[in-house]
């Protein structure tokens, strides 16, 4: 077929599916609509890879034909293999490779690997060469053959496949990831606990890391308990997890990643070991939202442009607008989770539950409000954010204790001010104007224009740590804040003394940026919280021009009064 005639129409997404996504939890039919979109994209990726490497690797057409034959016999099997989460990761890597430079056989061999897996499962007879990655041949949804280490790298091996059996022509140890089913409340969650596939962490290939029997038992126990919790208290979320979650990837102990998902791996969630079933349930609820939103934005536009950075109250670094929408969507579900769950946890977990509910609720509200009137959202994007706002308002009818509310307000104010200090750069010309006005004794002429830059994100916030301790472990907090530090004064609520102490710190070291934020919080100086980078820049400019540093509090008050 060729020419202008195109029998391939555009995918359609039922409006009911979009409405369900906005409203929170989706049923199996809507999940199937998202999955169909992902399957179509995977097929486009396969075709793109074929077009890109057809002239480079002679046997690519052989792999494609094998896959096509398997599809003719067993289309459901081919779909299952192609939709395996790690296949998405491999295809994305292979396309990145072919688009950037000379493609490596290890990456482009994904086509052969998929074809081999489909051939095994559909009962075809064939021979095919597949890449060896991290010392193993891994056929998605089939299993892994670990080759004995010879000290030499092995690039690829030829597989002989007959009646679903695979012969490698050399010694190899076969194993496969565990399939697990948990049932409760009439809902069954069937997933693969993937600890073998080299692409399971969505990045460059890594070695297999089989769970040991104790770890396996612990994961199984927590998964059972989490599923009980979800089906009992969050049945609609359980329904969408049952429809959408396919693979759980245990992350190695000691990783700093709490949980992760990838737009290349629909249906997969990676996570570190959790201490409680509630934590595991929360992480599942959170990550499946990313999975849904990733699939949605592959189909429709929620934003009018992708460029430009914005502030997300839960991140230290600037985010793109889509990243902010991801956070809003995932954390709205988390707020709803804790709205129900915070009164159901054991006493030992109660403080953290209430704290998480209050903190996430305020963070998401701040993010949603920041998008009010945004011209960077499409109509669908506005609908999406408005729905999150409505869901949030349902959770805002519940009040939290005054002290907790105050702590959360301080944490948000500090985080926002620190982000603005590190990632906003005021226009030098505007700083100069402000410095001029200050030196003339004139009133402040207004705010400086500024732009977002990728500044330092590895910023310690000892004051936030104390505030969090006050909310989570008041006994430990009482012992810790006996010191006469500025942060301790602030955390104890002695704001006047704290303001004086922070001003002293700034006089001693004008580069003590944390003290600037502390002064803003303690003295409630809006300019320091809103435009901390500008206040610092004006102070530096005035100091450079006059040799006298203005008092930080006076400068902040002058700018606040504008």
């Amino acid at each position, binding site marked *: 077929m060729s020419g202008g005639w195109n029998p391939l129409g555009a995918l359609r997404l039922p409006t009911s599916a979009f409405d369900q996504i906005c409203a929170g939890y989706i049923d199996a039919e809507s999940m199937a609509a998202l999955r169909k979109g992902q399957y*179509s994209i995977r097929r486009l990726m396969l075709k793109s890879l074929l077009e890109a490497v057809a002239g480079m690797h002679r046997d690519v057409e052989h792999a494609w034909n094998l896959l096509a034959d398997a*599809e003719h016999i067993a289309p459901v099997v081919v779909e299952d293999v192609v939709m395996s989460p790690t296949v998405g990761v491999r295809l994305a890597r292979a396309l990145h490779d*072919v*688009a950037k430079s000379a493609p490596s056989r290890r990456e482009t061999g994904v086509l052969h690997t998929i074809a081999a897996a489909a051939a095994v499962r559909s009962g075809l007879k064939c021979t095919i060469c597949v890449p060896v990655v991290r010392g193993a041949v891994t056929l998605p949804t089939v299993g892994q053959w670990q080759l004995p280490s010879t000290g030499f790298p092995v690039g690829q091996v030829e597989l002989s496949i007959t009646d679903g059996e695979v012969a490698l022509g050399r010694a190899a140890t076969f194993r496969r990831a565990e399939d697990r089913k948990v049932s409760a409340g009439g809902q069954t969650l069937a997933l693969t606990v993937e600890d073998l596939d080299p692409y399971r962490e969505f*990045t460059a290939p890594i070695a297999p890391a089989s769970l040991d029997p104790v770890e396996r038992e612990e994961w199984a126990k927590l998964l059972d308990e989490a599923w009980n919790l979800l089906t009992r208290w969050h049945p609609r979320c359980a329904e969408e997890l049952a429809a959408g979650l396919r693979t759980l990837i245990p992350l190695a102990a000691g990783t700093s990643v709490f949980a992760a998902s990838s737009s290349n791996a629909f249906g997969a969630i990676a996570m570190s070991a959790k201490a409680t079933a509630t934590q595991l349930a929360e992480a599942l609820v959170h990550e499946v939202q990313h999975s849904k939103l990733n699939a949605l934005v592959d189909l*429709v536009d929620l934003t009018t442009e992708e460029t430009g950075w914005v502030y997300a109250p839960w991140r230290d670094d600037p985010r793109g607008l889509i990243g902010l929408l991801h956070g809003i969507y995932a954390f709205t579900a988390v707020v709803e989770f804790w709205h129900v769950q915070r009164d159901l946890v054991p006493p030992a977990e109660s403080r953290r539950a209430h704290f998480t509910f209050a903190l996430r609720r305020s963070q998401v509200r701040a993010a949603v409000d920041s998008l009010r009137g945004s011209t960077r959202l499409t109509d669908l994007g506005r609908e999406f954010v408005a729905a999150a706002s409505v869901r949030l308002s349902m959770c805002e009818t519940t009040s939290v204790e005054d002290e907790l509310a105050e702590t959360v307000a301080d944490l948000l104010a500090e985080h926002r001010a620190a982000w603005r200090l590190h990632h906003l750069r005021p226009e030098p010309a505007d700083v100069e104007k402000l410095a001029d006005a200050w030196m003339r004794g004139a009133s402040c002429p207004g705010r400086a224009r500024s732009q977002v830059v990728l500044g330092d994100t590895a910023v310690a916030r000892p004051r936030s740590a104390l505030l969090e301790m006050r909310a989570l472990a008041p006994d430990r907090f009482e012992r810790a804040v006996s010191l006469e530090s500025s942060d301790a004064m602030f955390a104890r609520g002695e704001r006047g003394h704290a303001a004086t102490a922070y001003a002293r710190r700034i006089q001693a070291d004008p580069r003590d940026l944390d003290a600037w934020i502390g002064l803003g919080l303690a003295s409630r100086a809006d300019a320091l919280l809103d435009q901390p980078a500008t206040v610092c820049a004006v102070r530096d400019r005035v100091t450079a021009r006059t040799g006298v540093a203005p008092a930080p509090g006076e400068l902040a008050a002058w700018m606040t009064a504008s």
Partner: protein
Amino acid sequence: MDSRQDLLTHQMDLTGIPLSALRDFRGPELNDAIALLLSNARHSTPGDAIQEQRV
């Protein structure tokens, strides 16, 4: 029943065409889709696609 029309997405529906036919299929829309995919792949950075929460 929802009376609103389905949303038209910006993705071609490749789920209905057999792989045997897709192998040799050519067409301006498909070519454009492939070109866009490869362009996005070229400009992507490993890790771009990952959403993660850190402890």
